């Protein structure tokens, strides 16, 4: 589904990704871990197309198609979803209106008929139930005045609404209390199917108790320096990154 080959990316003169290789297949869950500042969020942003970063070399394909030549919105319409670490507030734009436009644009791109208002409302009700999102929030401005937990639930709600093929969840667990973490993580697992894939970026093993990964990768200084199965996350939780980093020479 997603194939990243020797990906290098910079912000300004500073190279952050220094040759990433990663392949994600349908039905898989990958976890990306690593110390702060190792490039995890940059990787997510670059895949989604954030113009703050410049790709200097390498390739990213999504279902065989060159992703890097596509604008941000076309990547999204093809089924790529990024759950933001810091969801952005959009004053004056209601969540319901935002989702109505997003769903309509994505359906149009796929050549599907637009949803009727009744169908849309039904979809909103169904999907907000997945993450126990208070229905009052959908009439409020996007992320404005939402608590940390509500913002993250709102990300997963949007993921449910848009039904992406590949979801990259950037520290969706950060800032959540134990109950909210359970709700968010359970929501993600309920959306998992054999024909979609999930990449979770996280610092904590706890999230992976719910969203069980097939692969765990350690990103350090812009490279994936180690990959393993779910037991790697447990080992990292216990022993930290030192044993890996000490072995690693730039």
């Amino acid at each position: 589904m997603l194939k990243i080959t020797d990906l290098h990316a910079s912000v300004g003169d500073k190279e952050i990704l220094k040759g990433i290789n990663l392949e994600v297949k349908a039905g898989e869950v990958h976890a990306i871990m690593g110390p702060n500042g190792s490039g995890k969020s940059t990787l997510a942003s670059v895949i989604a197309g954030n113009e703050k970063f410049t790709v200097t070399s390498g390739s990213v394909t999504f279902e065989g198609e060159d992703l890097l030549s596509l604008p941000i919105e076309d990547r999204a319409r093809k089924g790529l979803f990024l759950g933001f670490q810091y969801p952005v507030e959009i004053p004056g734009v209601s969540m319901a209106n935002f989702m109505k436009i997003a769903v309509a644009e994505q359906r149009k791109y796929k050549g599907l008929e637009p949803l009727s208002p009744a169908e849309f409302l039904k979809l909103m009700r169904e999907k907000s139930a997945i993450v126990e999102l208070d229905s009052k929030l959908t009439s409020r401005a996007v992320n404005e005045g939402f608590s940390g937990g509500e913002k993250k639930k709102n990300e997963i709600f949007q993921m449910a609404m848009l039904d992406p093929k590949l979801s990259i969840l950037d520290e969706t667990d950060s800032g959540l209390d134990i109950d909210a973490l359970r709700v968010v993580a359970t929501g993600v697992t309920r959306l998992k199917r054999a024909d979609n894939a999930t990449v979770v970026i996280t610092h904590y093993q706890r999230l992976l108790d719910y969203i069980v990964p097939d692969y765990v990768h350690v990103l350090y200084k812009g490279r994936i320096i180690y990959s393993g199965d779910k037991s790697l996350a447990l080992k990292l939780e216990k022993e930290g990154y030192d044993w890996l980093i000490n072995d690693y020479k730039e």
Partner: protein
Amino acid sequence: MGVEQLIESGLLQPFCGGVLESAAHPAVAVNPKSLDVKVANGVSARLVLLYTTSSQSVVNIDIDRDASLDIVAIYAADSYVSVSVNQSEGSVCKTMSALVSSSNVTYNYALNGVGAESVFNAVFVVEGREHSTLNLNTRHLTSDCKSCSLVKGVSAGNSTGEFHGLVYVAPDAQRTDAQQQSRNIELDNSRIISLPQLEIYADDVKCSHGSTVGYSDAEALFYMRQRGLSLAAARRLQIEGFINDVVSRCDMEGICSVLHDAVTAKLERL
């Protein structure tokens, strides 16, 4: 419904000056050259000022003791307008104003009576080669008055939008509460000039002012595009949201949809 239909169906009452009474439906003055308005003691009235052709206009309003007046003003054509409001003790004036043309509009509020209150909301949207100026002078002339203003502007193309705001607090105007906010977004090669000022001669006052001029928020655009919105749609939604935050505070029946339509039509041209 347009304004003419609203007038025909009686939802707006034509008004050419004089004493304004409490009425089932708001009064409307369309392109008035000069308008003198009085709101008598204890009366709650509503007034719509509408400029649809190029106009020069002077509006004088007296609001008596404990009376209140809601004003909605739409500047849809290039106009040169001065609106002066004199407020007596305990009176309240709420103004919602939209400049969607090359206009020069001055509002003068004189808070003459103890406990008078002014709430002022406005937007201006300019594009092409337009130049719009909004002047707001709020004079706290006695104690315990309150004023709160929020002005949002968007400029595009090669246009210029100006906001000049002055809050004056007289030496005797103790316990004044004055807030003034100016928020602006500049697009393309356009220019925003925002000059909020405070002139305070009393010591026991609570005054704040803020002014920002920014570009479209790149992170918000990225967020919206990541959900599948085109760049143009994301930008439009962001600007609409920014402006609607003010426009949605309109609570005068009938005319709100006219105000909303005028602003939306203008935003579609950006």
